[in-house]
Every structure is written in structure tokens, then in C-alpha cells.
């Protein structure tokens, strides 16, 4: 008997050793393919950064003849760029606040209750990002025209808040579903009002999910160009400023610098959001 047992455990370790080696070592071909796809996804970002230091003004010559940092100073002195940047930041801030309010309230209602029409409401919340942006854009524009409203700061916010709600909602509802219902019951049993339960039990649990959703909403709003084209009128947000440079290139060096700048501004919220959820399941579910 003892010998059989040891034999079994030897076999066991051999199997598990095999198992480990099979798990850690992905096939060589697969690893190369993965690396290739990652390079495809990320090399364009490196090029954007490289070109911001390019001395060549008139063309996208590669490799750049020499490098300089002078365009950064020049870009920040551009009044039109600064105005566009300020408009984008102000729009994103208010759109995020609106999305946080609408998304959180809706998620509180939807997380634990089943009612008639519940699926319709989730569809309604997802619809603005499920339909192509151009549909949302032209729909909002044509109703603004029908109502005789002029384009303004608020018409841009209107469009952005519409498609940002879902980001907050998805993050919040995923967290609420994971929060144990017995916590809420305990709070109520101990005599807390609904408001106290929200303030002291639900909100602390929900906070990081709201920050994560809010950050994504901010990044999306800051960067949005398709819906904005239809609701901005003559105003220029920073992505629209960049788009105008793309179709009629005048100041390539300044455009290159602004591109890097936009990348950095959107990268920060993404990193914060990822850090706040860490369990990456939430993020992969949100969609854009």
C-alpha cells in the first residue's frame, strides 16, 4: 500500500508539473501573433509622440530629420487651441456630473427590483451608444432645429450627457449587484432611514464604481467628435479643432503637439478608472 500511494503522488506531481508547463508556455507562434497585434495597436501612439518633436514643418517625413521641443511652447500660445481646450473641459465636466446623477439614480432603481418594462429601460439607456453616433447626432440636431433652439454650450452638453449615462449606469449596477442585500436589510433592521442606508452603506460601496464610471464618461465626452459635429454649430471643441486640422492641414507642428496633449488628457481618466475597479470585469463590460 505505501508504495502505491507514493507512486500515485509521483504521478500526481508529474501531471501537475505537466499541467503547469502547459499553462505557462503559450505556443511560440501564438506569442508572436499576440506581440504583432499589440504592436499594431500601440506603435501608432509612439509615432504620434515622436512627431510632436519633429523639426520638419511641412510634411510627415519619416524618419524625422531632427527633434525639437519648440512646438510645445508655440502650441500653448495659440488662442484658438486654448479656447477649444477650455470648451471641451467645461463640456466634459458638466456632462459627467449629469451622467453621474442620472446613471446613479437609475442604477439604484434597477439593481434590485424587477418590474414591467425593465428590459425596455435598460435598452433605452444603452441605445445612445448601440446606435451609430451619426444617428444620435442628426436626431438631436433636427429636433433642435424643429424647436428653433440655437446651438450653444448647452446643446453640446445635451448630446454628451445622453451617451455618457450608460457608462456610469453599467459600472454602478455591476457594483450594486455584487453588494450583498443582507447589508441593506441589516441597516434597515438597525433603524436607519433609506437616506442613512444610502449615505453610510450603499455609497461607500459604490464610490469607486462611480469614480470609474465618471472617469470613463469624462474621457468619452472630452474626445467625442461625431455627435458633437451636429450639436456644436460654429463652436470648436478640441477634437473638432483637430478634425478641422486633419481635413485642411495648416499648422502640422501645432497639430502634432495637440494630439499628444489629447492623448495624455484621456489617458489619465482611463488609468484612474482601471485602478478604481481593478477587477477588470466591469470595464470590459461597459463598451464605448
Amino acid at each position: 500500500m505505501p508504495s502505491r500511494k507514493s507512486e500515485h503522488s509521483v504521478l500526481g506531481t508529474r501531471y501537475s508539473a505537466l499541467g503547469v508547463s502547459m499553462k505557462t508556455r503559450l505556443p511560440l507562434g501564438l506569442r508572436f501573433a499576440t506581440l504583432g497585434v499589440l504592436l499594431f495597436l500601440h506603435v501608432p501612439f509612439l509615432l504620434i509622440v515622436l512627431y510632436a518633436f519633429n523639426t520638419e514643418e511641412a510634411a510627415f517625413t519619416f524618419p524625422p530629420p531632427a527633434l525639437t521641443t519648440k512646438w510645445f511652447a508655440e502650441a500653448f500660445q495659440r488662442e484658438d487651441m486654448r479656447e477649444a481646450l477650455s470648451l471641451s473641459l467645461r463640456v466634459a465636466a458638466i456632462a459627467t456630473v449629469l451622467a453621474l446623477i442620472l446613471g446613479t439614480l437609475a442604477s439604484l432603481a434597477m439593481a434590485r427590483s424587477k418590474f414591467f418594462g425593465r428590459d425596455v429601460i435598460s435598452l433605452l439607456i444603452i441605445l445612445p451608444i448601440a446606435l451609430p453616433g451619426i444617428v444620435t447626432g442628426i436626431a438631436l440636431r433636427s429636433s433642435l432645429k424643429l424647436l428653433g433652439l440655437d446651438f450653444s454650450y448647452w446643446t453640446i452638453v445635451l448630446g454628451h450627457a445622453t451617451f455618457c449615462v450608460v457608462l456610469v449606469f453599467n459600472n454602478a449596477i455591476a457594483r450594486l449587484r455584487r453588494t450583498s442585500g443582507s447589508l441593506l436589510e441589516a441597516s434597515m433592521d438597525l433603524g436607519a432611514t433609506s437616506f442613512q442606508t444610502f449615505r453610510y452603506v450603499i455609497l461607500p460601496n459604490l464610490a469607486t464604481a462611480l469614480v470609474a464610471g465618471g472617469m470613463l464618461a469624462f474621457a468619452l465626452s472630452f474626445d467625442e467628435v461625431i455627435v458633437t459635429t451636429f450639436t456644436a454649430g460654429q463652436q470648436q471643441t478640441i477634437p473638432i479643432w483637430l478634425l478641422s486640422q486633419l481635413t485642411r492641414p495648416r499648422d502640422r507642428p501645432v497639430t502634432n503637439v495637440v494630439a499628444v496633449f489629447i492623448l495624455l488628457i484621456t489617458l489619465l481618466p482611463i488609468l484612474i478608472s482601471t485602478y478604481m475597479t481593478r477587477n477588470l470585469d466591469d470595464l470590459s463590460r461597459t463598451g464605448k
Partner: protein
Amino acid sequence: MLRSVSTFFYQRKTLALLLLLAPALLWLGVIYLGSLFGLLLQSFFRLDDFTGQVVREFSLSSYRQLFTSANLAVIGRTVGMALVVTLASIIVAFPLAYSIAKTSSPTLRSILYLLVLMPLWSSYIVRVYAWKLILAKEGVFNWVVQQLGLEGVLNAFLALPAVGGPSLSISATGTFLVFLYIWLPYMVLPIAASLERIPKNLLEASSDLGGKPNLTFWRVIMPLTVPGIAAGSIFTFSLTLGDYIIPGIVGNSQPFIGQVVLIQQGTAGNIPLAAAFTVVPIVIMAVYLLVARRLGAFDAL
């Protein structure tokens, strides 16, 4: 005071629910759905040929215009591109998704996820701009081709009808590459998620029963990733259908649905036709979503 308010709502659950939902419902239901219905309504108006004014009476003339051969070509071109982009992104996404799902190191998995999420959330317009740099005549792509001595191959490819053009940045291939690049992360994430969900003992059972890796891949792994593929394709398909910026910046001058909508509602002032054109992606996506739901895409989102 607060306590009595709290009790009041506790006893009236429906009212509390309604109050919580009201802001979002008012915003999305009135502003958003209202606008969509307004758009739908305007697609049944018509443009007066003489005055160029929109006539607000029921007419199917916009929809009749949709079926002229020029407009059908636009729709066909856009849907064709959406299909090709979707197929290509499934193939390109798979190895990366597979590595994410099958690596045994949690740190590596988090890093790989982050490397997919970063391009997904970072600026769309900057990423399109990057391809303008890459595909420019004096840019990186041609430089690499020259270093490898492959100009002949590139020129032969560009001479081909349909996919070719004067240069890559003015060709359907260029448009395709940028679409693929921009939407790829949307395909990687759901495929990786559905691969992660495959129980390992299914793969062991397949190999125990004598299935070679190849057979296991096609008969066990692939069928189980269909929901993920369907979920990812909702994004790649819908986003390609509605995009008007990429074909305008990198592409030949043949228009896509989005560009026609933009022109018709803007300079042409033909809102009814623009509205009828937007109904096309809505209908295609509605059908697509129905099929995707049957394939289990909504559980994989």
C-alpha cells in the same frame, strides 16, 4: 422629518422606484427618443424640387430616392466594408484574446487587458490622425516598404481595381486598415471574456478522447466563443456603419452612408433624405441585434 419621508417612500416602493427612474427616463425618453421619432417622422417629409424647402406632408419620396442605383451603391459599399472589417477583426483579435484568456499569470493578464483598454478608450480622432502620419506618401509605411525593397509589391497591389488607388491613404485598403485598427479592441475584449469562461476540463476531455489540438480548436473552442464573437461584431459592425470621419480622411472619394447623411443634412439641406439614410443603419442593426441575441451575444457583453 427625514425619517417620515423615508417611511413614506418605504411603504410606497413603486413611487420611490418611479422617482429614482424619472430623471433618466425624462432625459432619455423625452430628449433622446423624442429626437429619434422626430427624425423618423422627417424621413416621411419631402423636399420641394423648385423651392428647395422641406414640405411637411406624408411622402415616400425620400425612401424612393434611397433605391436609386447611386444610393444603393453607397449602402452596399458601407455594409460590405462593415462585413470585411468585422471578419478581419475576428481573425486579428483571436490570438491576443487567446493569450489573455489562457495565460496563467494574473499580472500578465491584467497588463494585456490594460493594453487593450488603453487604445479602446483613448482618443478616436488622435488615433485616426496617427494613420494619416503612417500612410502619408513620405510617411512610416512607405519608408518601411522601401527599407524592405518591396516597392514593386506595393505598386502592384495599388494597381489592383477596387482595393487599390493612387496611394494607400487614398484607397479602400487604407480605409479598411484604419477601421480595423480603430475597432479592434472592441472585438478582443468579448472574445477574451468568452474564452476565459470555457471550463478547462472540456479541453482535457477533448484531448483525452483523442482530439488533436486542431480538432479541439475548431470543434470545442470556436463554438463556445461564438457569443463573444457575436458581441464584438455588434460594435465593429455598428461603428463602421455609422462612421463618416475615417473614409473622409483616409480613403478614396467614394462616399459611405455617414458622409451622405452629413452632406444631405448640411450643405444640401435635404433633411428628409438624410433621415431616410439614417434609417438604413438602424434597420440593419435591429436585424443584426436580433440575430446576435439568438447567438447569445447579450450574455457575453
